[in-house]
């Protein structure tokens, strides 16, 4: 180590940066502790109604009980299955459709109004139709997750593909590249960053879809637990399920961020 080469100003700067990072981390955690702590204390003191608001200790106990009976795992797995399947199908299918729309300007022009309308339509309105078509079960929930995620995927990816620099396309043309070569060697690799940010959006979309689907029809899953808890006025259960949902969505998002880091490192 060449400590002599580092100036005082540099050391001060590094220290400042470090302090700021620690402060942010502490405050983030502090806010959580404060809210949870205040919630617990106020509920215990009877300032807020623990029946309507629940309280952190009760939520933890509910999660523990759910876990011990083995219910938690099966509920989590059900929702995870629906979300992941919806996420994967919508991402793959949406990207493929976007590719076709990039390929054919004609198709793009023809289908544009349909995509715009489908995008603006609140998909929940399709609930009854979906139930009639796909039955009151997992299929409907997955379909809901797909339809919510796929439209966003199509629009995002199509814009990404179309945003390929015109001058780079000219370069490919001047080299005599076919449309397929332009797609494979230029458009797709150039759209990887768009694809990654699309994945991030899709994580959120797929969760909306699966939970919304479970609100409509379900006998199992986190969404089911929330609806059921609400109906029988067990706010502990509602809160516990929401906490679990937060954790799951957070983990899935973190995984996509890790994937993003891996991809950008490779490029």
């Amino acid at each position, binding site marked *: 180590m060449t400590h002599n080469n580092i100036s005082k100003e540099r050391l001060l700067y590094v220290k400042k940066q470090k302090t700021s990072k620690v402060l942010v981390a502490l405050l983030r955690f502090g806010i959580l502790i404060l809210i949870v702590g205040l919630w617990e204390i106020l509920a215990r003191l009877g300032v807020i109604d623990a029946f309507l608001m629940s309280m952190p200790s009760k939520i933890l106990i509910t999660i523990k009980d759910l876990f011990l009976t083995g219910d938690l795992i099966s509920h989590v797995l059900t929702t995870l299955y629906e979300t992941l399947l919806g996420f994967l199908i919508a991402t793959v299918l949406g990207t493929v459709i976007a590719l076709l729309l990039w390929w054919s300007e004609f198709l793009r022009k023809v289908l544009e109004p349909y995509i715009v309308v489908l995008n603006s339509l609140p998909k929940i309105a399709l609930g009854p139709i979906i139930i009639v078509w796909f039955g009151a079960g997992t299929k409907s929930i997955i379909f809901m997750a797909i339809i919510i995620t796929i439209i966003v995927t199509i629009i995002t990816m199509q814009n990404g593909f179309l945003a390929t*620099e015109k*001058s*780079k396309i*000219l*370069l490919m043309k*001047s080299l*005599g*590249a076919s449309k397929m*070569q332009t797609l494979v060697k230029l458009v797709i690799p150039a759209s990887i960053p768009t694809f990654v940010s699309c994945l991030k959006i899709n994580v959120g979309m797929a969760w909306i879809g699966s939970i919304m689907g479970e609100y409509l029809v379900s006998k199992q899953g986190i969404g089911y637990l929330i609806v059921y808890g609400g109906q029988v006025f067990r706010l502990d259960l509602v809160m516990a399920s929401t906490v679990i949902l937060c954790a799951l969505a957070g983990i899935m998002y973190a995984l996509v961020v890790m994937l993003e880091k891996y991809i950008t490192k490779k490029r």
Partner: protein
Amino acid sequence: MEEILKLDNVSLTYQSENGETQAVKNLSFTVNKGQFIAIIGPSGCGKTTVLSLIDGLIKPTVGKIFFKGSEHVLTTKHIGYMLQRDELFAWRTIENNVFLPLEIKKINNAKNREYAKNLIEKYGLSEFKKAYPNQLSGGMRQRAALIRTLVFNPEILLLDEPFSALDYQTRLNVCDDVYSIISLEKKTAVLVTHDIGEAISMADEVLVLSKRPATVIAHHVLDLDKSKLPLKRREDKNFAKWFDILWKELNYDA
């Protein structure tokens, strides 16, 4: 001298929703093997369109373009097109960027890759061959782009204001750089630019185009010392004379 490219009374009319625009009108000129021709004209006169016509990217509405005496159909094999910016792909290493034309033309064999590697070596990019474009300076990137253009051994190079994206200092250096590579490789070149100085310092002959629809209004054979590099040629006693002539021709029309 062997005639390599000939434009015979070429006209081009664009069709768009708002009507038609005549971009090029009765354009005729020839390029001989080993020549360096510069085409200058006022901005927006359709200089780039002329290169696109030569490259076969667009077909002339009227007139013919001959390549080595025959009307060309698939000439992209023989023509290397260097664009305004380097257009290197950020996700490919310099070496893989240079290989791109070989992949596209499906001639990515050991012999051609060896040729590419030699060019990289010869023009001082070997220490950067595994680097990504964003790790190189603007001048280096432009040199890499030129090597990418040379890699399939084209007979004519089309240069579309290849230095316009660089700052002035880099520009003069890269100009020397590109010129020496082109003359070392004994390539025929057609340079399009709006920079009069660049045209005089690099070319053997200069064509002056009118504003749209572009047509040739003057054709000059320059009398500068061709053994000198472009930057040195700017000191030539005839440089100022040609600058004056071309400046007036460009402005007369505008």
